[in-house]
């Protein structure tokens, strides 16, 4: 007779679900458990670790990816719910060795320090441009507010995004000139 304290637990049958995803233009097929988030699938099963697990609660935006060209928090959706979708991560932005214009602008405007939020910032900015709702620097700032940068690189991020969007140059505070990479006196 089984001793209920020492007997190995009866292995519960774990149901997995077949899903097809197109990730950065490449078709993939996975067998996933229902509780696997899209973020965990990208990082742990597709080996695409550019998308970051910052908070895992939809509060930081570091996991932002594009699904069908729209930006979402990949930590707040299940992989099974995205079956058949076209997904772009930060790894899919560059064209070979040719950086995406936003990536180049982030470098030129010093739009990051530690870099942890940068993949999410980049995907979010691509989504913002796809959406076509930002028509001023203030609207760019508001519509990038789903991406938190702990290093406070916001002026550089706004400068990079608005430059790629072709908006007139506008410093955050005209009375206090700001040189990328420096701390104002």
């Amino acid at each position, binding site marked *: 007779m089984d001793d209920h304290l020492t007997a190995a637990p009866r292995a519960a049958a774990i149901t997995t679900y077949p899903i097809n995803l197109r990730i950065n233009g490449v078709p993939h097929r996975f067998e996933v*458990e229902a509780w696997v988030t899209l973020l965990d699938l990208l990082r742990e099963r597709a080996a695409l670790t550019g998308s970051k697990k910052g908070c895992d609660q939809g509060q930081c935006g570091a996991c932002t990816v594009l699904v069908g060209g729209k930006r979402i928090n990949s930590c707040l959706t299940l992989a*099974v719910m995205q079956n058949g979708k076209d997904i772009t991560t930060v790894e899919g932005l560059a064209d070979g060795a040719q950086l995406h214009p936003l990536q180049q602008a982030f470098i030129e405007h010093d739009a990051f320090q530690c870099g942890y939020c940068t993949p999410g910032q980049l995907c979010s900015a691509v989504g913002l441009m796809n959406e076509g709702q930002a028509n001023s620097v203030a609207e760019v700032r508001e519509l990038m507010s789903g991406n938190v940068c702990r290093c406070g690189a916001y002026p550089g991020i706004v400068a990079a995004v608005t430059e790629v969007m072709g908006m007139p140059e506008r410093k955050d505070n005209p009375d206090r000139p700001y040189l990328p990479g420096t701390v104002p006196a």
Partner: protein
Amino acid sequence: MNPITYLEAGDVTGALYHSEQPGRAFIAGGTNLIDLMKEQVMRPHALVDINSLALAEITPSASGGLLLGATARNADTAYHPLVRDGYPLLRAAILAGASPQIRNMASNGGNLLQRTRCHYFYDIGTACNKRDPGSGCAAIGGLTRQHAILGASAHCIATHPSDMCVALAALEAVVHVESAAGARQIAFADFHRLPGEHPEQDTTLAPGELITQIELPPAERFAAHSAYLKFRDRASYAFALVSVAAMLDVGDDGVVRDARLALGSVAHKPWRVPLAEAALVGRPAGAETFAHAAELLLSGAQGQGENDFKITMARRAVIRALEQALEGTHDNSHEYAGKEPL
């Protein structure tokens, strides 16, 4: 997250069939449900995905209003031309909430069903009558900055966190639901409930009922004068401390013909007081009239100590929102326009 199984419903009938079994939950955007499942606050053992149901359309209604599909995304709703042109208040409220990423995911039906962001509801190590009926309320006497100043009970002082719902309350939307028993319509004022002795019940939706559409009655008379004003701890991407949806119908003589007022993040549901709106009608639109309406809307307000400031803040927000509505159509971005960050 606990082990779960997953089903994709093909149509409303299928979704309702699946939902009859206990422990199942509908999922559309999932932005709140998945978060709550990770935190073990909600523990369904199966999810029924309703994204394939044909409920994502936004179409004119027969009565001259608008029908918002339950699975239409918040962003698609806010940016829809018929919402932009006919319901600027709703657009402003949606765009004041969450982040662009979350608005791209979150569904309209899910926005109505989102749970409170009370810290104690989220922390399974604390007592919470909403999460675990009968366990008590750790928020009372705790950190209450975001909690209710109106309509609270001895069992729960949580607030409803939605921005969209504050506008829907002012617009007197109607929630269309279906279940195996048939279809019914719920007036928005009756959809969310006060906590009373049963804070575990956020809404009057019966188990197994599915929101299919949200109907907006015609609102042309208010389209020229509306404002959504939201006060929060940071300029964007934060839940409201206090928010106000205000709509005015003002005659050429400057006298208010009709008015709607709703407060957000101050109670377990969007807060409306018919007397406060009636006090605006037939009066000249202006400071004295607005201040009187604000007093009536906040009548009976009681703080929890740490959130006492919300009573004064709400009163002032109501007056400012009415002033903004009188000027034209305001969205929350006017709070920050032209101001340089430090």
